[in-house]
Every structure is written in structure tokens, then in C-alpha cells.
């Protein structure tokens, strides 16, 4: 009898103990605690973007860094203090390149993992979220998961055009320590589209950017912009993956897959919304640094807010530290922007580059990210999706059916960049050549042009008139060693 009594007491003690042993940390936040309030979900969503804004991702590397180096946009000095020479030579075994590549992979998947945790909790905790917040949180988390996967795909998998059933990438939809499964390129793209379309449906119901009164504009100018209205979390929709950003991403990915009708549909949804006005020349060319808009801010569908002093310093070191930085050979720059011909008056060349003298001549410094150090009409940003890209997508997708319309989209962008001479040519080859050249000018220092070469699987111009052949050894970055080793890839 005594024995039983002891057993019962012990059992009772043990079960109440279990609760007592569950200690909540006070200086760290447990996931369950974070996701018990609406504010926690908002913080987690903000966390996704803050993570994206770090220097290993869009804060520096994936915007200004190695993808543009791979596209041969830069020149480096013999000392090469920033260690990009081997990247320019496509030496994918170079230690510095490997470090940056691995950091990008890890960073993107880290954002994905963060999205997955949010998605795991958002439906469980539907009760604590109001409907619009639920839709925005879930929509943005889904969109972010797809957006980051797409950049992994564009870096590490053969293009859809080259190998639609290529090895692909891991498409991760759960936060777990289990080795994520690989999806073929086509499968991965379909998963991204699925996530993005779901996100689009969710955001359609809740995104304030869709309200007719929502106007994009400059933060610092008291014009009719109302991007700062409403609760903090739903302000600055263009710093989040908003409804139009999702449309833009869909257009981008459909185009990558070669699904022109759907790409066009989504691109046109953005264009026809007329939400994003072309930047006024007076803003772009404003001599007053504080009022100057080099970023073409109003045209951004989505950009990562990266106004962190460390990031700003890092960008300054990378781009503005004399010839020790990534710079542009004067002649190369002039060739890219066709300054001897049609680009003689291109605002972009004039505003985004400055001629700097150095011991053996003159070079071009990239000024796209230059701002007044104290104040500016828009914050420091890493551009991610632009209105011009929508026009380019629309143009490319409509050329086969309506070349004139295609040239019209093309010329619209050029016109807004100061190139008044419209082009028109029935040849698709000519059109594509012109389009690629324009895209390179437009996306300089934004990390997009390399993906375009890859998507089209075309050879592209290297330095001093050379040509880089379209081969997978250049277009497909090897997976990180750890991924191969621990994931059996």
C-alpha cells in the first residue's frame, strides 16, 4: 500500500513539475511568445525585410556586388582590395567569391526559414490577427519565400531556357532541421508561382496600396503622397512586397519560364494601374543633392529599405573609394550607354556616373547610391522591382504578337531617360539586342542584368570588346560546399 502511495505521489509531483520546468527566457523571445500577438507577427515580417537589407543580401552584395561583377559591369585595380578580380574572371573556386556566394545562399535561405516560421504560425494564430493584417502577413511571407527562392534559382540553377528540367534548387516550405528536398527548375518555378499567386489573392483583399487614394511619392516632400498614412506597419508599402510587387515578381518569373501571356498580364496590371509615375526630370536632374532623386524612387514597385549607417558606409567603401573600389572604365561606360550615339543625352549616364581623375587617366564612379549624407527626399534603398522592368517585360512579351506595341513600351522607357529618338525595327533579333542593351543601362548596379543574360542564355559583352560565351559554367554558380556535403546534393 505504501508503495502505491509513493508511486501516486511521485507521478503527481512529476506531472506538475513539467510545467514548472518550462522556463521562459527573459532576454530572448521564444517563437511562441512572439507569435502570440499581432505586433509579434508584424515584427517578424519586418524581420524578413531587415534581414534582406543586410550586406550579404540586397543591402550590398546582391544589388551592387557580385552579380554585376559577373555581368562585367566593373573594373578593378591591380591591388584589388575588395577582392573581385577572380569574380570578374568567373573563378568560382576563389575563396573570396566562395565566401560571398555562400553568404548569399545562407542569407536567402535564412529569410526563407523566417518566412516559413511565420507561415507555420499565421494560420494557428489566426485568432489574434485582424483580417487585413492576416492577409498582409501571410501574403508577404508567401511572397518573400517565393522571391528569395527565385533569386537562389537564378544564381544556382541552370536557366529554364537552357534546362527546364535541370537539377534545380531546394524549395523549402517548412522550418525544420531535415535536409530540404530538391525540386527541378520547372517544379521550383511552379511552386514560386503558386506561392506568389496565393499571395496576390491575399493581398488583393487587404493591401492599402490598392486603394484609389494611395499615392506614391517622396517621403520628404509634402506633396500628395500618402505613403506615410495609417498604422506604421502598413505605411511605405513599396518597402514591403505589396500587391504590385507581387505582380511584378509574377511577371518576372512567368517571363523566366517563358509564359509570355501571363507575364504580360501581370506586367500590364502594374503598368495600367498607373500607380507608379515616371520620375520627373526636375527631380532626377535636381542640382540640389538634398532634393535629387537618383534612385528614380517613384518608379520602384519594391525596394528594400537599407538606411543603416553601416550599409551606407560599406557601399561608400565599395563604390567611392577611388580606384580601390569597383569602378567603371571610362571607355567601357561610354560604350555601354552609347554616349557617342543614341545615348548622348541619357540622363542615367549623366546622373549615375561621375568622371574621376586618377594617376593614369579618368575613370567612372557609380553614383547611383549616392545621397546627401544628412537628408534626402527618399531613404537609402536597394531597388528590387522597377516600373521600367514591367515595360521591358511587356515589350518582350508582346513583340511576337504586336511588334509595334513592343517598341512603344521600349521607347516609353527610353523617352523617360532622355533618349528621344524612338526605335522601330521588325527584326526580333534587333529588338532583343536593343532591349538587353537598355536593360543593362537601366539596371546598372542593381544586380539584375546578369540574370537577363542567363534567362535568355545569350553570350554577352565582356571588357574591351570581348564576348563572354553563354555556358552553364558561367551562368550556374556551384552550390556551397556545405550544401553539397551535408545535403548530399
Amino acid at each position: 500500500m505504501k508503495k502505491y502511495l509513493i508511486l501516486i505521489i511521485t507521478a503527481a509531483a512529476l506531472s506538475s513539475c513539467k510545467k514548472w520546468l518550462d522556463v521562459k527566457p527573459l532576454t530572448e523571445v521564444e517563437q511562441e511568445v512572439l507569435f502570440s500577438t499581432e505586433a509579434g507577427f508584424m515584427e517578424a515580417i519586418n524581420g524578413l525585410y531587415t534581414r534582406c537589407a543586410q550586406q550579404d543580401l540586397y543591402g550590398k552584395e546582391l544589388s551592387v556586388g557580385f552579380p554585376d561583377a559577373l555581368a562585367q559591369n566593373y573594373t578593378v585595380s591591380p591591388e584589388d582590395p575588395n577582392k573581385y578580380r577572380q569574380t570578374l574572371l568567373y573563378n568560382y573556386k576563389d575563396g573570396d567569391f566562395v565566401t560571398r556566394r555562400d553568404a548569399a545562399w545562407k542569407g536567402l535561405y535564412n529569410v526563407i526559414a523566417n518566412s516559413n516560421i511565420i507561415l507555420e504560425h499565421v494560420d494557428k494564430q489566426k485568432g489574434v490577427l485582424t483580417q487585413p493584417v492576416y492577409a498582409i502577413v501571410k501574403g508577404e511571407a508567401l511572397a518573400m519565400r517565393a522571391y528569395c527562392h527565385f533569386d537562389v534559382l537564378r544564381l544556382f540553377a541552370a536557366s529554364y531556357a537552357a534546362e527546364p528540367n535541370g537539377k534545380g534548387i531546394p524549395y523549402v516550405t517548412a522550418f525544420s532541421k531535415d535536409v530540404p528536398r530538391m525540386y527541378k527548375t520547372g517544379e521550383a518555378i511552379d511552386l514560386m508561382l503558386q506561392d506568389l499567386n496565393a499571395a496576390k489573392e491575399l493581398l488583393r483583399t487587404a493591401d492599402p496600396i490598392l486603394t484609389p487614394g494611395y499615392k506614391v511619392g517622396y517621403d520628404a516632400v509634402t506633396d500628395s503622397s500618402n505613403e506615410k498614412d495609417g498604422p506604421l506597419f502598413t505605411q511605405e508599402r513599396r518597402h514591403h512586397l505589396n500587391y504590385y510587387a507581387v505582380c511584378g515578381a509574377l511577371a518576372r518569373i512567368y517571363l523566366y519560364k517563358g509564359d509570355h501571356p501571363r507575364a504580360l498580364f501581370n506586367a500590364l496590371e502594374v503598368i495600367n494601374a498607373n500607380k507608379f509615375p515616371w520620375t520627373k526630370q526636375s527631380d532626377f536632374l535636381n542640382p540640389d543633392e538634398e532634393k535629387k532623386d537618383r534612385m528614380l524612387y517613384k518608379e520602384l514597385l519594391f525596394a528594400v529599405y537599407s538606411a543603416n549607417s553601416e550599409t551606407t558606409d560599406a557601399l561608400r567603401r565599395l563604390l567611392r573609394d577611388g580606384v580601390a573600389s569597383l569602378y567603371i572604365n571610362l571607355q567601357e561606360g561610354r560604350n555601354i550607354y552609347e554616349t557617342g550615339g543614341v545615348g548622348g543625352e541619357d540622363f542615367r549616364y549623366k546622373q549615375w556616373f561621375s568622371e574621376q581623375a586618377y594617376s593614369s587617366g579618368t575613370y567612372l564612379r557609380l553614383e547611383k547610391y549616392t545621397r546627401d549624407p544628412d537628408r534626402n527626399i527618399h531613404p537609402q534603398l536597394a531597388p528590387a522591382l522597377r516600373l521600367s522592368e514591367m515595360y521591358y517585360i511587356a515589350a518582350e512579351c508582346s513583340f511576337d504578337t504586336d511588334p509595334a506595341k513592343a517598341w512603344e513600351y521600349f521607347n516609353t522607357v527610353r523617352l523617360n531617360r532622355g533618349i528621344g529618338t524612338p526605335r522601330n525595327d521588325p527584326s526580333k533579333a534587333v529588338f532583343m539586342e536593343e532591349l538587353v542593351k537598355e536593360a543593362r543601362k537601366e539596371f546598372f548596379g542593381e544586380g539584375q542584368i546578369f540574370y537577363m543574360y542567363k534567362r535568355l542564355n545569350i553570350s554577352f559583352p565582356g571588357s574591351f570588346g570581348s564576348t563572354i560565351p553563354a555556358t552553364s559554367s558561367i551562368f550556374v554558380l556551384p552550390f556551397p560546399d556545405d550544401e553539397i556535403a551535408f545535403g548530399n546534393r
Partner: protein
Amino acid sequence: MEQRYRIRINYVGNTVNGIYADAPPAKDPGVSMIDYLNDFLRSLGLEAEPAGKDQYIIFRKEKSRPASQPAKPAAGVEMEALNTTTPGATAPATLQQQSTVSGLVTEESGLPLPGVTIVVKGTFNGTKTNENGKYRLTNVPPNGTLVFSYIGYKSMEVKVEGRTAIDAKLLTEVQSMKDFVVNGYQKLQKDNYTGSAIVITGEELKHFNPQNILQSIQARDPSFRLVENNIAGSNPNQLPNINVRGTTALPSGTPGQLSRNQLASITNLPLFILDGYQVSIQNIFDLDFNRIETVTLLKDAAATAIYGSRASNGVCVFTTKAPKEGALELYYNYELNVTTPDLTAYNVLDAGQKLEYERLAGLYAGNEVDGEEALERLYYAKKKNVLSGINTYWLSQPVSNDFGHKHSVSLQGGSSSMRYGVDVRYQTNNGVMKGSGRDRYSLSNTLSYSPRSHKLLFRNQFTISQVKGTESPYGSFADYVKMNPYYPIYDSNGRLLREMDKWNYRSAAENSAIRTEHVLNPMYEATIGSFNKQEYLEFMDGFNVEYNPSGQWRISGNISLIKRKQTNDHFISPLSNLFYSYAGDQLKDRGTYEYGTEDFTQVDGSFTINHNEVIRNEHFLNFSLGTNIQSTSSTLRSFKAQGFTNDRFTDISFARMYEKDAAPQGGVTEQRLAGVFLSFNYSFQNRFLMDGTVRVDGSSKFGSDSRMAPFWSYGIGWNLHKEKFLQHTPVSQLRLKATTALTGDVSFPAYLSNTTYQYYTGEWYSTGVGAVFNAYGNSRLKWQRTHNYDLSVELGLFQDRVYFSPRYYHKLTTDLLADINVPSSTGFERYKENLGEMVNKGFEVYMRANVFRSRNWSVNLNLNMVHNTNVITKISDALKNYNDDVDKQQQENPDLKAVPLLRYREGQSLNTIYAVRSLGIDPENGREIFLNLDGTRTYDYNVKNTVPIGDQTPKLDGYFGGSVIYKNFMVEVSFYSRLGGDIYNQTLVDRVENASPWYNVDARALDARWKQPGDQVFFKNIADMGNTLTSSRFVQRENRVELKAIYLSYEAPASFYKRLRMKNLRCALNMNDIAYWSSIKLERGIDYPFARSFTFSLSTRF
């Protein structure tokens, strides 16, 4: 009555047993105390006799009852556990052939004991020893038993067996403690216990080193090992790291933990238990030595399993002295401690040699920085110093011989129901670096109350301690070692020089820009008001209730609270050399103040039920059922301020601002632990022994999927000396024991098992602050498990005058907490998992012999040695990856190029030294020849050729020594020896080959380096300024002997101390770390020199 009349009544335990009486009416003032007592006692068949002032002894009246009436055997818990109640001993003595027995009663040290009561067991026939400890007792039956008893000593029973002369040696109660194993929950008789436990008395510890408890424990048990700290030397504020039977944890594979010195940061400490509750190593480090009664070291898992998840690294159980009943007594102890630096490990160049070395090293040959003329001027300026006789011995500048005092007063007394004790301590301990020290003050109070029936006992003990540690303002000792001897300290006016030298060099980092190196006087740092101190105030209270409803049951509850508040203040004066190069705007930012606090709270409670049972005098059973809960929380806060105006206003409020671009630091850690255990102990006729323990532990650190963990132990033993065939042989003790157990370890950080979020506090996103997850929390995380196997033999010969005990152990630690790499597409790179295995096995030998014994002399020898082998049997990929990372770091990080770094390989030990194999110096050109992995020779160093070279684990290490007692004198000597371990001689690398010739170097840099072709030397070319890298050349086999301790004591004779109204008087002298002989020459005590210490102590009792 004792309380009422302020008298003391003494009696032998079984005199009054079984007699009950009501309290007598109050005494008439006219009646003398002795008459009053006798009036009352007469009816009870007792008689009182005066024995000194206010002291009375009670006897049974000689003729009142026939001796044939057997007295009931005493039936206390303790007596049961002692198993002394064998039926034969209680039989009444027969009256035939009674004889007279006489003899001498002494205490363990051989001093005669007056006043000891000797009674024939079961009768009322007794006597007392005289002034000289001699007694004579008539009418003793030859088959009877004599019981010797004396207050403060353990009673002893001796069978007469027809003898007429019986000498007895009484052990003090403390010494008799050694017969028991106190494990914090139970008190078990050592004879019947299968676990491996060492019991050391506080007094024994003092014989080794009265300044350092942990050091003293190490000397008594070889498997309790303080990890040598060559960097911190004898810094009195440095807490040691301890291993018990080898390391059982892996450092987590973060790339930060590279060098071996950081290996010392692995938390592998044993569990410390003070009077039943857990305390930190710091509590023990600062504990008042005089309060310790015993230390029980539980080493094998059978002994520690009762602590379950905390048991893997051994348990150290401390018990403090309980106040004894009796009139007020005052103990006083004084210690004078002198520390003196031991600089014998240093051998640096003198002024003339140093300058010659600089010349040979080519400092004054053209160097493309300065012109030849400028260099020549520099050389001759120094030469002038040398010739004018400047030869500063920098090593002696920051050190001094220092004194420390300790006064310790203890008051105690009380009646059998109410006892009290108060301990006060004042202790200063100054280190050999000037200005460093650790001062400790403590006050503790013990109250115990037991109501009349003695079935209940309440005991409360509280302690307040204040400890203040100060670091030397003189800075690191290494700064003095490298100072050139031709620098004067003071200028011609006797003022301290600040800048002593400067030269130009080309910076490798900044595109070969020319920079100037300034040599600043380290002595200057001590004159400018900087300080670095930590202080804590601690309150500890332990409350204990014990209920003994009968001799067989004991129920006890324990609750304790520890609260500690610690503050750290680190002020660096704006005038410090650190800010020498500050200019312009920076000037106002000179001077920093770092302030930190820690609040620590621990509540620990336990509840235990003990039951013992004797069945047919053959089966002895002992059960314990207990539970224990513990909750700790610690809060840390710190911040830093900068910008001080001068060195006079050092309060933090004078700071200009907080540290630039820095945030305050802080952290809160909470841990909870709960456990239930059941333990049983069985012996059959004291011959066959069996022990077993089961404990279930839950910890807040475990993952939510595995909150509860079971642990167990099982042990068997055989007391061969109780068998017939060993009776009447020289073998007085022979015991075989085997145990096995499963124990755990939870010394990993809290919260690893939860996925937690962190905020981007420093980074704002345009729509609010962001949060991302920290790391993947493995909810299946569980405790590390150690499977233990232990075999031991205890052999005692000639009444244990020779004692020999070899032990073998095997510890397999599985589920080692290790980082597991996952493909980073999961979103993280690694997580914590229980993977990895490590084996520690080894043997320990204890030997003790009383080689000579006579009336006045006693000579004892003792030896304890241990050999431990550590093998990593399984590691995770993350650690393998870590090795590659280490290779890379070693190649790239200039600070790590010449240091053997920690690597992990299966089949190797954690103590393996990894380096590139070297064939030595080529006599042809003074370059080092390396071996590639394939055995070919090369001059080119490649870190990929790194292989395991040696093992730091010694073949054998331990202590040996002996003691001699002559009358009232005692000498005890202890040596430590370490045989056959490898050491990477960092001195040869850092201070000979890689030493910058601009600074002072080891003397071997001048005389033992290669200078011309044909030189067959150990060191490379003297003019070779290139970096020497980690190679096997510097791995040396070490044999070492240290004279660790000498203890001298003198016990004043009674005639002397009685004149001073004292109850005893003893003076003692301890000498510690006296001498050191090693087969290799290594600089020891890099940041803080080692010290010799001398302690004179005086203790007395009033």
C-alpha cells in the same frame, strides 16, 4: 537543570539509558549543588560527583543493582548504522576470573588524554584516566568489552580477550567522520558502501594549503585535478577550472574557441554541495577554511548517481562544523600569510647581452626605414646606457613580498536541546603583483534546537560574506618581462619616465607605411589612478528540519537561499598608456569606466526519508527516498562610459558620455531543476554489499520533448576481511567493489532547446523594428549521458597500518552536446544535437603506510597517483569541419600561427598537440626542415601537414609525501609529480624565435641560435626575422617534480596553555609551492607570476 543552574552534567551514554524522571523541585539556595543532585538521583539509582567548577559527573550507584541485569543496547540511528550492536557484545559479563586491566589512552596524534571514561560494557563498572592518560580498571571479565568515551571524541569499544594491558587511541568526532560517506542526502557507513568516495577532514586540508581549499583537495585526491593556468599564475582572483577523472565535455565548435587557453573555459566543473545544497565554485573558493568539517569527494557514478543529471563530473560535498553542546567555548585562529614571487622560470638577457643580441639580429643594419646614421645614433644611445651601468631588472618591479592576515573567531556552546555557534572571519590575501589581492569577510551563525524528546531537530545557518577582489594596477606581467634592461625607470631627477624608446618600422598592414613604435613605461600605469575591482556581498541561509520518530526512520527537509550581488568596476585613467596615441578630437574620449552588476538568486529545497532495518542481525537495509528542487536566476547588467578629465575624479559620474556606438549589455538566465530519487543500500552480514540508486531529473534546459531523464547506479562489494579465512591474518581490510551507473551533465547554456527570436535593435526598418530567429531550437535536446564502470580494491594490512587501494574506471560519455551541420538551405547552418562520444579511462592508486610507530614517534608515508586517458571516439561533421577552419585560421591569423590549436579527431584525445613534423634546424643554413605528410623533406611550411604530435596527458601524475610526528611536533611534506606528458614549449617560440628583437627576450635567443654554417643548434638563424610556425620541434616531454607543501606544527603542552587559561594551543607553519624541478624550461605565469606562500598560524580554544 544545566540551563537552570548554569552547570555542566556529564555522563556516559548508557548510564542513564532507560531511566525517566520528572524534573526535581527547585533547589533551596542553602543546599549545595552536589547534595541537591544526589538527593534527586538517589531514587534513580544514580550518584553524582563534582568534577571541577560547575561540572558534575553522574554514575550508576555501584551496588544498587546486580550486574546480571542486561542494559538495553543503545538504539540511536547512528548506532544502527554503525552496526556495533552485535549480540555478543551486549551479553552480560560473567563474574568468573575477573582481572585488572590498565593502559594508556591517547588521541590520534599520540597525546595522552586525561579524563576519559572507561566502562565495562553492559555493567556499571567504570573509571577515568588520570592526568597522564593512564587508567586502571578492576573486575574486568576476560571476555568483556571496554567502552572508552570522552566528550568530543568518538566512543570506542575494545574486546578484552583476556588481556590485562589495553592502550586505546580515541579519534575525534571529526576523524570518526571519515568512517562515513555524507553525500548530501544520506550518511552511509563507508565499510558498507560500494561507491568511490574520499573523505577529507578540514584539518587535513589545512595541513596542505590553508589559503586555497581547492588546491588542498587536489593534494588528497589525484583525480580531482585543477587545470594548470600558466597565464594567470598565482592571481588570487582567478577561479580555477577543475576536472574530476578527465574532461567529459566538448567545447562547442564555434570558431572563436581556438587556442588551448580557451579550452580552459569549458565548463566541466564538479558539482559543489555545501550542507546539502548546491553552491558555485566561487562559494567554495571564498569559504572560511575553519568552518569546514569534512569534504567528501564522490567520484564514481555509483556515488554521484543520487545527483542524476548533474553527476557526471563528480560531486564535492562540504559539511560545516556544527556547534557542540557545552559551556561557551571560544576558538581563535590567526594566520599570517606571506607571498613571495617565484621568478625562477624567467631567464632574460641583461643590458649588455640584450644590446649585443639586437646588433646580431640586424636591427642596426640598413633597414630602408631609417638611414644608417640614424640607426647608429640609436645604437650608441643605448650603448651609452649600457656602459653607464643601467641594467634594470624589470621583472622585480611590479612584484613584492606581501602579507595577508586572517583572524577567525568562533564561539559555540549550548545545551543538549539548544546550541549556537557564531563564526567571524577577517581575511586579507595579497597577491605578489603589487596592489592585487582578495579580501574576504564573513559572519555566520548556526542555531540548532531540539525539543526534549530529541525526535525533532531544527537547524538554521546563515552566512553573510563580503569579498573584494582587486587586480593589480601594474597591468600584465608580460609587459615587464619584455622591457629592455638598458632602459632606466626614472630620469636623473628621480621622476618616473613615461616614454622610454621609439623607432620606426614599416607596417605590413597599411601598405608599408612607415610607423613609429613608442615604448612606454608599464610602471607608469600604476601611478595614474586606474583600478579594476570586483566586489560581492552574499547572503546564504540554510534551514533544516529533521524528524526521527524512531531509530529506524529519519525524515529531513532542507531549504536554502543564496542571494549574491556582485559589482565590477574597471576604470582606466585618461592618462593611461592606452591613450598615448590619441590626438585632436579623440583626446576628450580618453579614460574609460566599465561598470557591471550581477544579481544571483538560488533557492534549493530537498526532502528525504531514510529508513533502515536490521533483519535477524544479518541483513542490513537502508532506504532513502528523496526529492529535490532547485531554481536559480541570474541577472547581468553592464555598461561602459568614456571621456574622463583626469585621474583624480574617478567616479563614473565624471565621465563625459557612454561608450561611443555601444549599447548597454545585459542578460537574464533562469534555470530550474527537479528530481526524485530512491536509493537503497544492503549488506549481508557485513560481508556482501549492494548499493543502488535511481533518480529521475527534470531540467528546464532539456528540450520540451524530453524534460525528464532517468539516471541510475548499481554497485556490489565483498568485504573479504569479514570472511573466516582472513580472520587472524595480517589482512585487516580487504574489500572488492564493482559499480556501474548512468549519470548526466546539464552544464550547457539554457534555452538551446527553444527556437528564440532576436530583435534588430540597432537597425530600424521603415515600418518598424524587425525580429528574426536566433538559432534552431532542438526540442529533442537531452542531457549528456555518461556510462560509468568502476572496479576497486581496498587492502589494509596490520590493522590498516598499510593501506593500498587501486581503482580502475571507464567513463563513456555519449550524447555529447555537439553542433550538427545541416545544409544551409534549412535557413541555419548548425544546431545542437546529442552526438559524439568520448571515453575517459584510467586508474588511480592510493597508498598509505604507517612505517614506524612508538610512544613518541610516528612516521607515515602516502602516495596517490593517477593516469587518465581521454579518447574522442565519435564526433560530428561540424567538428570535422571545424578542423578545416582551424587550418585556415592558423594560416591566416598572425596571432595563431605559432600556437598549437585544438583540433578534433576520432581516436585522438582532447589533449593531443597538433603540429607540423620538424626535423630540426639545418646546420648548413639555419633553416627549419619540415616533413610532408608523405615523409619527404621540405623547407616550406604547410599547415596541411599538421599531424598529431604528442599528448599533454601525463603517463602518471599525483602527490606523494609523508609526515613525522614526534611528541608535540609534526612535519608533513607533499610533493607533486607529473611524468611523461608532452608540452608545447611556447616560451621557445614566443620568447626566443618569434620574439621581437626590439624587446627583451629569453636568454636562449642570444646563445642558442644558429649563427654560422655548421652550428648544430636547436634554434633557427638569429638574423631570421621570419615567423616561426607551429612545429613538432617545440613539443617536449616533461617530467616534473614540485615541492608543493611543507607543514610544521607544534602543540603546546597542557601545562603551558593551562597557565594561559586556554584549552589548547597550536602553532603551525605552512610553506607552499616551494620548489619546482622540470625537464623543460618554460616561462610560467605569463600575465601574473607564480608565487610561493608561507602561512604561520596560531590556533587556540578558550
